[in-house]
């Protein structure tokens, strides 16, 4: 084969000529992200296939062993967050506390991002455990279990309390491009858990609107909570309550026909506008 032919053939084979100078290979299927996936599956009670080959069982064991070590280190690292923030420094202190050398922080290539992600997952799990014990309500057509949702959001927000000073940094870390997907996954699993345990079994379009709406309320409340200095976070609670009322009004409006809904839609819009302008004097 002549030289020219070789060149042409290799040009054909190699389409991806332009590549990054230094790229991070995604060859880590047991990465920390899979954790939330597993949790979602568990909660949705998906049928587990009964025939698992011994090899994959072995692999599962390995993954579990590694996950346990990672979670142990992360758990210890949380103790150092008030002191050194959501950082690699906390991770290496955590590794040391767990009995490993400080260099083991390399297990978490995302650094602080992985720590924040772990904290979110842990809080979501705790919230699910608590919600299971709360009294169940029958979800009737066009009513929203507002008290349940308010309690759930507040319980979840108060879990941030020990780390409140460092939480703005954590929120910033979550918006970094390489952490966004993890952050959205945990947020969606949070609102999904809340909706499921509040009795939502809808299979129509409401499934989406409820979850997206709730995610919006949660994130807004999180921001409000950061600057809330009232005792027992009373202001945050009333903020959450009024956001849920807004959502209720919007949902009611969507369920009605346009003409009959006009006054309520207007009221909702008006209240929202007042809230935005900060001249809502009801509270």
């Amino acid at each position, binding site marked *: 084969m002549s030289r020219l032919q070789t060149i042409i053939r290799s040009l054909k084979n190699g389409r991806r000529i332009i590549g990054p100078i*230094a790229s991070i290979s995604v060859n880590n299927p047991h990465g920390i992200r899979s954790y939330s996936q597993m949790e979602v599956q568990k909660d949705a009670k998906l049928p587990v296939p009964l025939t698992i080959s011994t090899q994959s069982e072995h692999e599962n064991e390995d993954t579990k062993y590694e996950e346990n070590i990672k979670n142990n280190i992360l758990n210890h690292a949380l103790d150092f967050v008030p002191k050194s923030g959501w950082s690699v420094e906390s991770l290496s202190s955590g590794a040391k506390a767990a009995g490993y050398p400080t*260099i083991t922080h*390399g*297990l978490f290539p995302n650094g602080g991002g992985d720590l924040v992600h772990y904290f979110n997952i842990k809080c979501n799990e705790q919230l699910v455990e608590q919600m299971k014990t709360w009294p169940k309500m029958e979800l009737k057509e066009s009513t929203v279990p507002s008290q349940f949702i308010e309690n759930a959001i507040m319980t979840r927000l108060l879990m941030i309390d020990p780390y409140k000073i460092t939480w703005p940094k954590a929120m910033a870390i979550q918006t970094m491009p390489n952490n966004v997907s993890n952050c959205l996954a945990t947020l969606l699993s949070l609102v999904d858990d809340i909706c499921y345990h509040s009795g939502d079994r809808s299979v129509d379009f409401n499934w989406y609107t409820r979850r997206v709406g709730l995610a919006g309320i949660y994130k807004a409340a999180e921001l409000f909570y950061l600057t809330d200095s009232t005792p027992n976070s009373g202001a945050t609670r009333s903020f959450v309550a009024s956001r849920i009322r807004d959502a209720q009004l919007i949902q009611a409006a969507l369920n009605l026909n346009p003409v009959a809904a006009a006054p309520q839609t207007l009221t909702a819009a008006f209240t929202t506008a007042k809230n935005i302008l900060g001249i809502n004097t009801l509270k």
Partner: protein
Amino acid sequence: MAFRSGITKILSLRCAAHHVQVRRALTTQTKMVEEMKPGKTHFGFQEIEEEEKTKKVHEVFETVAEKYDLMNDVMSMGIHRVWKDIFMQRLAPTPETKLLDMAGGTGDITFRYIKYLQNLPASQGARSSVTVCDINQAMLDVGKQRALKLGFTPELCGVDISWVCGDAEKLNLPDDSFDAYTIAFGIRNCTHIEKVLEEAYRVLTPGGRFLCLEFSQLPNSTLQWVYDQYSFQVIPVLGQLFVGQWKPYQYLVESIRQFPNQEKFKSMIEDAGFRQVTFENLTFGTCAIHSGFKL
């Protein structure tokens, strides 16, 4: 005058180089280690007795030791510095780390490690250490001199440095004694890669990290072709021009082709017992950083 005699030598050696090139073009896939007969190993593209390899590699580095750093700059156009910087950033050493810098003769990794630690906020009482280990005393001597010149003495930089001459396959160091094991552009020259990995696993403490920087293969065949042209046509010439040596640099490029690719090397690291093994390509895959943990 030396330059001109270099040119004449190149001209006389061109035939040999061309021969290598033709063979290379026909076998685009690297020959794997499995094909070897028992007791034999690769020395570049040659097949030699296992005992011989250590000796030959030793000779190669003996001859190039003094100009080693210069040649690294020339051949990689300075990029090897960036690779090593990235390598150290991936390790991200923390105070009180005990590092074993294997095959770290001239100290490139060690000095970066010390600088990284110096740039960290000062911590009280935590003292880090580094053990530079190399099979070749000539390379270690170059490293020691550089350390003196750069002012990296234990008193000044706050990091304990010790220089040890030893074989990566039979380390004379106790079990569980290091937090991190780095080997940059060294593992390729060892006769038994599995033994090196096993030794690395042995000397690392639980939770310790194995980090390897090594030439690898480009997943894109066009770029691999370009890279091959550069390796076989240019690098030995540069060796002849700057150091007056052709053979060591021909060995260098050949040994790169014999080294297992990213995925294969990853599974070798896993076989040695390491967990959470990952790799990252640098400059399209010219180099790869492999990372593993003893957990």
